[in-house]
């Protein structure tokens, strides 16, 4: 059965390592914070200027001066710090953040990503996404395998304006975990009960399958 958004987040959380600083994008990536594995300590960075982001505040304790990059009210953990936007992107560009998780509209087999613009239709801007994907060594894309019209989002080439070039290393979808290398998607894991055939049929870009593909354990 295909994963829901929570399932995708839960699977990505398994990628976290102790001591990492992590930037989570808006949408599915935000949910990753709910599934930090036992015994692992990570700290969340939000590019609007906070390190050590905590959960949402209790009702009545919201502070207009304390938000995340999604403009949601948040809290901070012990050891948090605030800083300006230039310093925040110094952390990102300088590769001090060990993992970036973000959503995408399209990913290509060579790791290109498109997630900021649909010409003539949606023009909200790239926010920090271009800095994040151009800078991070370790980028995981969290998205559905196909869009609402049923069209694959794992493509030979992106059709939408790019956010970054050859930067995505791993994609976790509702159907699979895929690594991107040597110009192809390499199928690493299947969602529980999802067949290799289904993944094949829903992946437009080159897909490499090596032997038995294990199911995710969540």
């Amino acid at each position: 059965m295909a994963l829901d958004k929570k399932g995708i987040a839960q699977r990505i959380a398994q990628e976290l390592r102790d001591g990492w600083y992590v930037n989570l994008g808006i949408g599915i990536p935000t949910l990753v914070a709910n599934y930090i594995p036992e015994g692992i300590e990570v700290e969340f960075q939000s590019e609007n200027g906070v390190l050590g982001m905590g959960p949402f505040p209790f009702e009545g304790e919201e502070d207009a001066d304390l938000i995340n990059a999604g403009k949601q009210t948040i809290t901070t953990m012990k050891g948090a710090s605030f800083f300006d936007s230039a310093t925040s992107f110094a952390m990102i560009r300088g590769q001090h953040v060990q993992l970036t998780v973000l959503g995408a509209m399209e990913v290509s087999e060579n790791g290109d990503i498109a997630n900021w613009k649909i010409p003539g239709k949606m023009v909200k801007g790239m926010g920090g996404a271009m800095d994040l994907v151009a800078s991070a060594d370790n980028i995981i894309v969290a998205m559905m395998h196909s869009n609402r019209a049923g069209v694959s989002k794992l493509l030979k080439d992106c059709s939408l304006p790019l956010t970054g070039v050859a930067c995505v290393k791993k994609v976790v979808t509702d159907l699979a975990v895929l690594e991107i290398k040597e110009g192809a998607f390499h199928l690493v894991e299947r969602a529980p009960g999802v067949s290799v055939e289904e993944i094949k049929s829903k992946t437009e870009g080159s897909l490499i399958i090596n032997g038995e593909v294990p199911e995710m354990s969540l």
Partner: protein
Amino acid sequence: MNKVINNVTEAVQGIEDNMTLMLGGFGLCGIPENSIAELVKTGIKGLTCISNNAGVDDFGLGLLLQNKQIKKMISSYVGENDEFERQMLSGELEVDLIPQGSLAERCRAGGAGIPAFFTPAGYGTEVAEGKEVRVFNGKPHVLESALHADFAIVKAWKGDTDGNLVFKATARNFNPMMAMAGKITIAEVEELLPAGELDPNEIHTPGIFVQRIFQGARFEKRIEQRTTRTK
């Protein structure tokens, strides 16, 4: 070095049609709301506004948009604003979208006398079109230039009569870099203190970057996405 002015009317004096402004804030967090409201009153138009976002329809820079006072926006993210989208798609409004980190660094560069720098952000995208690309350590980088403004308008939590500023939490965001990059920088603060009351170790923006300071009459500090959990 007293930088104190009497009120928001004096604060925006000298801002004229077709000038370039920088306005601090991220979303509605840390925006100079008193000065924006005053700019709406003045009716000054043809403005180029450098600001990470464009407010919402009925608050922040959205008010200037509604009033058709803005000719061009230089921002990284402009969602959450229907009037903005309408003006942009109809061609009434020029829009220059640039990566958030490049925006922050370009403002800092403007204030710091760095005319240009290389960044990896935007390489291979339409943001890099027409810009010089150079490879450093095997990785392509784009040459980005400094941004400047006739006036920078920032919002701080506390300030002193010398123009020193302290920001609160994530309301800091773009304010410090924009304060550096304005030919004239206006700071509106929630609390204005006599010089000497702020600890010199804890000042975020030294007064040298601020030419005018005043205590805002009222801060609504609207929340854009109120998210909470239950006890």
